[in-house]
């Protein structure tokens, strides 16, 4: 620890302590009567407004790994593997605006906590719900581990721990950071990352604005930065005998790779369980919609973060340091360390470290909720009380974090990165079930399960087979299909959909019973504006409505149930008939059953 800069180190430690205190204080923020309920611990009471949700979702979706990996990809290979992320964060919002409000509404009416809860309710299929939950946990684990890789990159450049030969001492700072994270998540649940997100996002904004205004001039201006990058990307690599990277995708295949990567990643992002957790924690349907218009502000920032990879290329000292370390992930930390005064380096490094803690906490909570609701409660203890469910989730969140820590420390870094790449492909395979389910009940549960399996298998095998002259397997996330370079996830989801459609036709023709659908068409657009977050004890919808509607039950129930002109309810004419007792979330006989 000889070359640690005292100023930088002190600032990082102080800001980390501030965040730790905030994390514990969050338990008292918007405190509910009974914190031992999954709606409270796992979803922050479902009461966040536009402002909090903006910080929470921003903190959730733009992770520390993004700040490290996107510029690293730009540094290493240019536009197709790096700058596609900017196009991807554009596409994600219009697409999300189509389906997220519907997911929010149906989840609020039925008190769903996870995306797999919705699948269980919509298709009446434990198997399909298990597949969705399993995929979610599988995809989240390496994602959490990668947040640690982000912290490690900063710690390495700071010179903390990395020089020691002892494996335990070497990773001690990481253990401390994650231990603290694990404890405050256990205590405060989703409230902790929501409150810390304010600090994180403020620091990140300061870091980016200063970096964009200050750094380019230091290395010769944007004109010089872009021409250096262009020259670098066109240089023929001695190993592969191909250009190092792509500066502007002008060939058909590089354009196709760029747009399929962007489209596939955009489809995947909002079905990640941690994104769903953030969405379901909001108070009203409108808040989701408004945030789809407000979150692009974050993406502007991402665009500039990506370009920092080119700035690092243009700075000779940084480029040399990265080359010496042999790890492109260090590009941004080295750039900051070289060009910023040490106090500001401290602030920037804190932004990245704290930026890792927020999403890691939300991901651990999302994974824990999936386990509790869709594995523990579903298969082991169907009468689990809300209190027990919360306890289980708290413990699982700890286990998930320890697992991710072991993952990050013991396995080679490239392994976590490959798994994360696979995670994106895997989670994309849950998209057809979740999103089609929000609009139609046409697909058959077994067909969706078979489609999911096809996509998972194809995606995994195809990703394994990607090779370059320097790497034999897992070399990237695009492969060649009929002569076109396409994102593997997108090919897999197309196969997935094709299998789902064909098998649905077959199963329907064979009259295989569909599952029982407990949702009603109008519940997908319900907006219980005047209804506060469900009371912890409310297992019954009536009591939830009564709690907020001031006793005006029929009116509030009507709001919840508001039929949209009946256009989506051909099968339930009884719903709109006055005086008739309607089956509220009750079971509708499935067509053909």
């Amino acid at each position: 620890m000889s070359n640690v800069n005292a100023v930088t180190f002190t600032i990082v430690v102080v800001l980390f302590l501030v965040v730790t205190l905030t994390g514990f204080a969050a338990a008292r923020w918007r405190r509910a009567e009974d914190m031992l309920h999954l709606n409270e611990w796992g979803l922050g009471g479902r009461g966040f407004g536009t402002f909090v949700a903006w910080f929470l979702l921003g903190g959730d979706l733009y992770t520390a790994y993004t700040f490290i990996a996107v510029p690293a990809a730009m540094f290493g290979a240019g536009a197709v593997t790096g700058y596609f992320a900017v196009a991807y964060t554009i596409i994600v919002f219009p697409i999300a605006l189509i389906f997220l409000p519907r997911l929010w509404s149906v989840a609020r009416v039925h008190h769903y906590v996870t995306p797999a809860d919705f699948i269980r309710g919509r298709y009446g299929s434990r198997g399909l719900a298990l597949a969705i939950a399993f995929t979610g946990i599988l995809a989240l684990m390496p994602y959490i581990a990668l947040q640690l890789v982000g912290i490690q990159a900063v710690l390495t450049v700071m010179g903390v721990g990395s020089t020691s030969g002892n494996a335990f001492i070497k990773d001690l700072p990481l253990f401390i950071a994650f231990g603290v994270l694990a404890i405050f998540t256990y205590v405060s649940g989703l409230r902790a990352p929501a409150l810390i997100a304010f600090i994180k996002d403020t620091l990140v904004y300061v870091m980016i604005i200063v970096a964009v205004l200050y750094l380019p001039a230091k290395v010769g201006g944007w004109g010089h930065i872009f021409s250096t990058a262009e020259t670098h990307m066109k240089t023929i690599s001695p190993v592969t005998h191909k250009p190092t990277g792509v500066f502007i995708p002008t060939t058909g295949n590089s354009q196709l790779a760029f747009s399929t990567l962007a489209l596939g990643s955009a489809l995947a992002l909002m079905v990640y369980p941690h994104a769903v957790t953030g969405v379901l924690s909001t108070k009203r349907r409108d808040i989701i919609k408004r945030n789809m218009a407000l979150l692009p502000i974050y993406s502007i920032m991402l665009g500039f973060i990506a370009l920092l990879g080119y700035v690092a290329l243009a700075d000779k000292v940084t480029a040399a340091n990265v080359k010496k370390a042999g790890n492109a992930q260090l590009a941004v930390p080295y750039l900051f360390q070289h060009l910023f005064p040490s106090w500001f380096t401290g602030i920037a490094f804190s932004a990245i470290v704290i930026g890792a803690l927020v999403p890691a906490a939300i991901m651990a909570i999302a994974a824990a909720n999936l386990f509790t609701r869709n594995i523990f409660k579903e298969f082991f203890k169907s009468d689990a009380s809300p209190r027990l469910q919360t306890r289980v989730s708290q413990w699982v969140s700890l286990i998930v974090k320890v697992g991710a820590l072991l993952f990050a420390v013991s396995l080679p870094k490239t392994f976590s990165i490959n798994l994360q790449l696979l995670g994106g492909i895997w989670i994309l395979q849950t998209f057809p079930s979740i999103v089609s389910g929000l609009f139609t009940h046409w697909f058959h549960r077994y067909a969706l399960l078979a489609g999911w399996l096809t996509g998972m298998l194809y995606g995994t095998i195809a990703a394994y087979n990607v090779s370059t002259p320097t790497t034999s397997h897992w070399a990237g996330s695009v492969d060649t299909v009929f002569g076109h370079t396409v994102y593997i996830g997108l090919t897999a989801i197309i196969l997935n959909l094709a299998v789902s459609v064909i098998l649905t036709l077959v199963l329907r023709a064979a009259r295989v019973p569909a599952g029982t659908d407990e949702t009603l068409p109008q519940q997908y657009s319900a907006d219980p504006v005047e209804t506060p977050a469900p009371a912890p004890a409310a297992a019954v919808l009536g009591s939830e409505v009564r709690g907020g509607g001031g006793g005006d039950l029929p009116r509030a129930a009507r709001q919840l149930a508001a039929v949209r002109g009946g256009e989506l309810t051909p099968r339930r004419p009884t719903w709109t008939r006055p005086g008739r007792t309607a089956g509220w979330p009750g079971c509708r006989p499935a067509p053909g059953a």
Partner: protein
Amino acid sequence: MTQPSDTSRPSGGSRSPVAAHPVTSAVIAILILASVFFAVWVPLYASATPKIGDFPFFYAYLLIYMPVLGIVMWIVVTLQGRLRRRPGAKGPAAAGDSEVAR
């Protein structure tokens, strides 16, 4: 689960909000599709020229796209809000919301 009895009248008549506001609905659909299309269709913007400041067009285009997208999304959300306030319905909560895309 106990089931609250449904004493509501048929709300909002038989016309769907989409059918009631065909123009607004079409505008929403076009705006959503366009905002995806102009980002996915790379040949539109994959060129170095015209330079915007020191930025090659390819890089500047996507950076400028972001604030424009924010504004377009805001218009879409506002229009969707207008869709669901049908004549005779009081307040935004009186009727279900609607999505154009299904």
